[in-house]
């Protein structure tokens, strides 16, 4: 009885000419959502490769099959294999008698210092003492920016509430000095004074600026932070790719260490300014394979979130 119908409802084998028009549309759609064009191309192509020769039911449309496959790959891309647990790692470092260290790097104006302050707030809310190392010794006002945040944060968690200890301390040596050296001193100072975490702010730099990239590589090599975060803004378009490739490459190329440190994670800022154009999240994870550890969603201390992969993919596919 059923075999009679097989020919009718049975499968349809997908060919290239079935999927290509759908994929072309989806590629443009992704680009419109601010996925780097090159990566939109690669993503849709790999969906095409997965689907070629696949048999689908007659009632399953080609378009919906393609969309479903793409959706799945996007969710997978955004879901990190390992989950970074910073608070646990901080405790582990504490148990071995040293502060946990984190460096923030990225191009100019993306939100490194502001989001460093947000992370400080999150850490002190978790009862951890934070040392901020002012290693942007170039940009006017960079040190005062961190000092202002330090004041505000200490006012939110006054020493009286923490056995007389200031929860946040700014380690700074003014302008014009060597950033790597300041970071080293800050870490030493933190160790001696029982700080739990050292957050290293660095100056913004263009990924093609060789002397500045070299200086960053040195800072990372000398101080071996537990976590090197690349701070990128959700507003960025195709440049996301070039920024990450070159920051990673610079850390490797300019290091004399046998096993140079690379970027361990991404902090994606200004997520509140892009509506549904969330493509930068895709471009950045695609390039590094590293997780988006936090997203910045505003200009106050509480505007820090975890990335919700499903929500991002929904926005992308809508």
């Amino acid at each position: 009885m059923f075999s009679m119908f097989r020919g009718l409802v049975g499968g349809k084998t997908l060919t290239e000419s079935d999927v290509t028009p759908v994929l072309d549309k989806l590629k443009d759609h992704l680009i419109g959502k601010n996925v780097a064009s090159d990566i939109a191309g690669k993503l849709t192509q790999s969906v095409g490769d997965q689907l070629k020769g696949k048999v689908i039911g007659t009632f399953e449309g080609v378009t919906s099959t393609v969309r479903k496959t793409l959706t799945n790959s996007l969710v997978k891309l955004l879901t990190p294999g390992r989950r970074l647990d910073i608070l646990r790692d901080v405790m582990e470092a504490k148990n071995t008698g040293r502060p946990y260290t984190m460096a923030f790097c990225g191009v100019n104006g993306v939100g490194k210092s502001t989001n460093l302050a947000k992370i400080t707030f999150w850490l002190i809310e978790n009862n951890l003492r934070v040392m901020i190392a002012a290693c942007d010794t170039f940009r006017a006002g960079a040190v005062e920016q961190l000092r202002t945040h330090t004041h505000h944060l200490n006012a939110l968690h006054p020493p009286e509430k923490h056995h007389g200890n200031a929860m946040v301390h700014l380690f700074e040596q003014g302008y014009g000095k060597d950033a790597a050296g300041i970071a080293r001193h800050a870490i030493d100072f933190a160790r001696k004074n029982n700080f739990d975490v050292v957050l290293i702010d660095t100056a913004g730099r263009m990924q093609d600026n060789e002397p500045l990239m070299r200086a960053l590589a040195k800072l990372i090599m000398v101080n071996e932070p537990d976590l090197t975060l690349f701070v990128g803004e959700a507003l960025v378009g195709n440049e996301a790719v070039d920024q990450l490739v070159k920051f990673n490459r610079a850390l490797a190329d300019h290091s004399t260490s046998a096993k140079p440190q690379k970027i361990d994670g991404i902090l994606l800022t200004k997520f509140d300014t892009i509506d549904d154009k969330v493509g930068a999240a895709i471009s950045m994870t695609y390039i590094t394979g590293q997780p988006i550890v936090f997203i910045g969603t505003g200009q106050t201390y509480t505007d820090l979130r975890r990335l919700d992969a499903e929500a991002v993919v929904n926005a992308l596919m809508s």
Partner: protein
Amino acid sequence: MVLADLGRKITSALKSLNNATIINEEVLNDLLKEIVTALLESDVNIRLVKQLRENVHKTIDFDEMAGGLNKRRMIQTTVFKELVKLVDPGTKPYVPVKGRPNVIMFVGLQGSGKTTTCTKLAYYYMRKGWKTCLVCADTFRAGAFDQVKQNCTKARIPFYGSYTEVDPVVIAMDGVDQFKKEGFEIIIIDTSGRHKQEDSLFEEMLQITNVCKPDNIIFVMDASIGQACESQAKAFKERVDVGSVIVTKLDGHAKGGGALSAVAATRSPIIFIGTGEHIDNLEEFKTKPFISKLLGMGDIEGLIER
């Protein structure tokens, strides 16, 4: 530089038309595909890119055209006109007038480079002999006034700001008043970064313009911005009368195509580009010469009759 790279790709695509023996639909499609790819890789807004492609298709009708040379020229001219539309809003920028106060207000997204560019612009006019100053109307960003203060002190630019007043509208008004009385010619107002999703920030921007009545509002864009630029630029323009655009951070690898949608959305020309973090890293941008330079890159000069 901006678009120079893009310009090169496009001119070479256009030149490839000269090598094609027959000009037909297929050749045109290949050419457009190449150009569209180059534009999208440079972050030009996808809607503008699609529009460009459609406009070219609309203008070039193979059935009605005869003669190879004619077709070639038609295609090249049409593509070029469409490209020019991207950079040239067809409006003239505000030109400051000597001997009276010219109030110039900076607006833009967070971190786009406003404060840095304010000092650069003040320095630019100061060196040309104008009586120039800066008002810091950003009371939100931590260290904003220190940034202005340090920049201005180093460059010897008179500045106005406050550590205690929290209302940027009050500071802007007082600063502009004071500098006007003192006979300053170029009065630049730096404001906080803002975005369309937070209405209170846009409202604040409107209030500052209402009290300061700027002669020109400059929208500052980061060259690396992608597809979100258009809706932001449009929203700024809808709220205040943006008259010029400055694209920053063009010393990097970014081609600046995303920032171009600010030109379309605000119908305002680019007047300067930022090419570094130092105070003299500011270059004048003139749309017309830029276009002819772009044209000059190939042998298609003179294609566009003016």
